Structure formats: structure tokens, C-alpha cells
């Protein structure tokens, strides 16, 4: 039954319109990398790292996760199709987890491929290690963002609005402007983990408002976000009145 819900969610997530937006966003880093290569742009180390951080981790990844994950439950609630799943003889976690994993798959595949390929095209040293670290970072960040946005979708049908405010307001602006807030930024945690695994790929500042949290904080924090948001989704499914 879990595979049925997984496949159902894949089909929902890959509607023509959504898939087009998703591919467009995921293709941006790769397009920039290809154009740079054609123009023989000489990327400095800082520029490459900025490319990974600002464009992929801080912007494209959370946006793609938002577009895919926020509607996973919010649309089912709004369209009143969630009753089909809630009236099935299955535990609520068997609804929550396959749906979140399906959304994760839809986010990770194009984003990881795009990141992996971008790094291979523009990187100058440790190409394959950096590409794998980049793709792994995408997986970790995507899991956290997807779990968060899917959970928010069980709380409100306006999860996309919340997500846009969160991505552009908190992740992009506030968390960089106010010292210490990077500690609770998923992008910050993702960058911290990538920096630990492949220092050449990401070289974030060690101090200042833009500094990501230390690795000893980032790993448990991102695990806590993933676990708590998924538990929250299951809890909501158990408690909610389905209309």
C-alpha cells in the first residue's frame, strides 16, 4: 500500500505545469555552468563557492522543495481527496512517509543531477569528490526542506505562501543579516555539512552573521528537523478532521 501512495504522489508531483517549473529551476545552475564553459569564464575559488552556496543551496534547492513538497498534503486537503487515503486501512505513518519520500525523490533527482553536472563542468580540483559532496548536500538539504514543507502543508493550505516567505525572508535575508540565526537555517546546516565533507566545494566564513553553524550542531539539528517535522505530519494526520 505504501508503494501505491508513493506512486500516487509521484504522479501528483509531476503534473505538467509543476514538472516544467521544477525542471526550469533545477536547470538554472547547470545552464550557468554550461554557458560559463562555452564562454571560457575563469571561475575563481570564491566565485565557485558562492555559486554553490547562493544559487543552489540558498535559492534553487528550497524553492524546488517548496514547489514539490508544500502541495503534497495541502492540495489533497484542499481538493478533498485526502479522504481516499484516510479511509484506507493503513496507519497514518504509512501515508505520511511515502508521500514525503515521493516528494523527496522528485526534488533530489533533478537537483542532484544538476549540481553534480555543474560541479564537474566548472570545478578545477577534486572534481568528482566535490560533485559527490554537492549531490549529497542536496540530498540532506532536500530531505530537511521537503519534510518541513510537507508538514506545513498539513497545517495550512497556504503552505506555498508560508514557504515563499520562509525561503526569501528567513533563509535568504534574515538568517544572513542577524548573527546566530544561521544556526536555525536549513541552508546553513546543509552548508556546514558540505563544508565538513568537501572543504574545496564550500568555504563558508567561520564567524560573522553569514557563518553556518558548527558541524557538531548542524548534524543533530538537521536530523531533529527531519524527525520532528515527519512526526508532526503523522501527528497531524492522526488528529485532523478531514473535510
Amino acid at each position, binding site marked *: 500500500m505504501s508503494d501505491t501512495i508513493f506512486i500516487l504522489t509521484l504522479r501528483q508531483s509531476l503534473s505538467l505545469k509543476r514538472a516544467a517549473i521544477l525542471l526550469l529551476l533545477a536547470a538554472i545552475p547547470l545552464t550557468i555552468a554550461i554557458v560559463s564553459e562555452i564562454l571560457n569564464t575563469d571561475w575563481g575559488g570564491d566565485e565557485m563557492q558562492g555559486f554553490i552556496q547562493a544559487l543552489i543551496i540558498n535559492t534553487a534547492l528550497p524553492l524546488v522543495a517548496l514547489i514539490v513538497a508544500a502541495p503534497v498534503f495541502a492540495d489533497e486537503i484542499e481538493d478533498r481527496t485526502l479522504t481516499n*487515503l484516510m479511509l484506507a486501512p493503513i496507519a497514518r505513518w504509512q501515508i505520511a512517509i511515502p508521500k514525503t519520500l515521493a516528494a523527496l525523490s522528485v526534488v533530489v533527482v533533478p537537483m542532484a543531477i544538476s549540481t553534480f553536472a555543474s560541479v564537474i563542468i566548472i570545478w578545477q580540483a577534486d572534481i568528482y569528490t566535490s560533485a559527490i559532496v554537492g549531490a549529497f548536500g542536496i540530498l540532506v538539504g532536500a530531505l530537511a526542506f521537503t519534510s518541513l514543507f510537507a508538514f506545513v502543508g498539513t497545517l495550512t493550505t497556504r503552505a506555498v505562501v508560508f514557504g515563499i516567505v520562509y525561503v526569501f525572508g528567513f533563509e535568504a535575508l534574515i538568517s544572513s543579516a542577524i548573527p546566530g540565526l544561521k544556526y536555525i537555517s536549513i541552508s546553513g546546516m546543509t552548508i556546514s555539512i558540505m563544508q565538513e565533507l568537501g572543504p574545496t566545494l564550500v568555504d563558508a566564513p567561520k564567524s560573522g552573521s553569514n557563518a553556518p553553524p558548527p558541524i557538531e550542531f548542524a548534524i543533530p539539528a538537521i536530523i531533529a528537523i527531519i524527525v520532528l517535522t515527519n512526526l508532526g505530519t503523522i501527528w497531524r494526520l492522526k488528529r485532523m478532521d478531514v473535510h
Partner: protein
Amino acid sequence: MQTATPTIQSGDNPIVSLGSVSKWFGNVVAVSDVTLNIGPGITGLLGPNGAGKTTLLRMICGLHSPSEGEVRLLGTNPRTDHNVYKRIGIMTENESAYEFMTGLEFVRLSARLKDLRREESHLREAIERVDMSFALDRKISTYSRGMRQRIRLAAAIVGDPDLLILDEPLNGADPTQRIRFQNILRETADEGRSVIISSHILEEVEEVSDSVVLVVNGKLAAQGDFHAIRAALDDRPYHVKIECSDSKLLGGELAKLPAVQSVQFDPDGSIVVLTSNVATLQLDLPALAQTLNVRLTMFRPIDDSLESVFSYLVEG
């Protein structure tokens, strides 16, 4: 008022058991202190729009948690024991089908969610029963309202559940589909399975139900054998509008009939009669009109709506 009709005898193992169940949304009380048992057979859940039928059914199905009280469905709490859904087919009031799927895919989804890895022929059988074979490969987004209702009924009946719960299933159905729906319900009951069907239209439920539960303003107004309740309804006073060729003459004579409580003349020339026995009036009126040589052009109960029936039951 609770009618003096017998309560449904559900035996020791009622299909549905509600104990002092209430449900409110903020300050709005949707269902208030309902206690009832529903037994086997076809049970009609009847009430005017906004009476609380859907909320009650949603609590019975486990889609809503009661604010107070206890709900038991086939002996368990559906909010915690989801295995109970293996034995139940449910069709909610909303048109909650996945638009991007074909009819066949939707019925297949329903079967798989119930862990029924059945042969394709069983899915097609369910679709055939609701007369939707001609459109099983068409996307649901192209279906009319009636077609959606039918494909959702097919999804509910696939796997031959012990209990069918249908919320306003005849909405959007044309007369032919209505008859087919009613036949399916009867077949289901004949096979020893049970059905709970809600409607705000008295006649819809009357044609298929063994017993009824009447809900008004979120409260249980009456419960029991349909025919006993119907008899109680027949004794209620009705307003009847009559149009004829000589209102003055006919109205004067009507006032003398024992079944007539009062006679009023409307400005449009029609007569409004309050009768305590509409059946007797229906018999007496043509004879009276013939005697007086008055031509009758209309005879119509003007307060036969379900709301007025319920008002009578509740206030009576």
C-alpha cells in the same frame, strides 16, 4: 420529539454505536448529544440540509473526531483502529476523486489501498455494476457529476465490503442512475451486507431503507421503522393549495368537511386549506367538486418540504 416508533433493533452487535456524541466547530454546534445504535440492513440517515448528517457520518467514518462522546464502528474506534476500513466502503459527499486518473485507475487505487490485489476483472465488475464501463479509460476530469458519483460508488463497492456508508449518493444522479443505485443498495442488503445512506430527500430514502434515523438541528429527532414514522407524518396537519373555477363556492363547502381545519382565500384566487388528514381530503375533494360542478385545476401540498416535516416531528 422522539417519535413513539420502535428503535432499530440492532441486537448485541450494532454496526454503528454512538454514545452521547457531540461535535462543535468553534461556537457552532453541528451535532448535539446523539445516542443511537444502527443495526444491519439499509438505514437511511435523513435530515434537511445543514441538519448535521454529514458531520454525523464523518464521525461514524472516523474522518472527524467527536468533541464529546464515543463512536464505535463495527465494534471499534475508527480513529484508532484503521483496519476496520478493510470491511467498509465509504462514499463521502464531496467529489473527492483524483482528476488526473482514469475511472479504472481510481477504482484500482481504492482496491490497492484496501490491500485488495485483485484481478483486473473484479475492478471491471465493480465498474460494470455502476454502468461506467464505457468510460473506464477516460480521465475523471472529463466526467459529469453523475459519472463521478458512479465511479466513486464503484470504488466504494470494490471488494464487497460488509458495510457501505454513502453520503448523499444520489446527488447529481438522473432517474435511470437513481434506479441503478437503488438496485445496488438492495443487492448489497440481499447479500447480507449493510448500508447507511444519507439524504435530505424523504422519497430517496423511503424507497430503499428498512429503517431511518432522522436528524434535525444536530439532534436525533426520530429513529426507527420507516413505515411507522411515515404513518406519523401522514397524521400531521398539511397546508394544501387548491385552484378551481369557483373558489368561493368550493371553499365554503370545504370548510364543512371533517378533515378540514381551516380555509383561507389567497389574493390570487386560490384556496389554502389546513387539513389534518390529507389522504381523506384527496378522496373527498373530487367528489365535492363534481357535486358543486366546480372544475379543479390544481391540488398541491404547500409545506411538504422535508424541513416542515422535521419541524412537525421536532415540535410536535
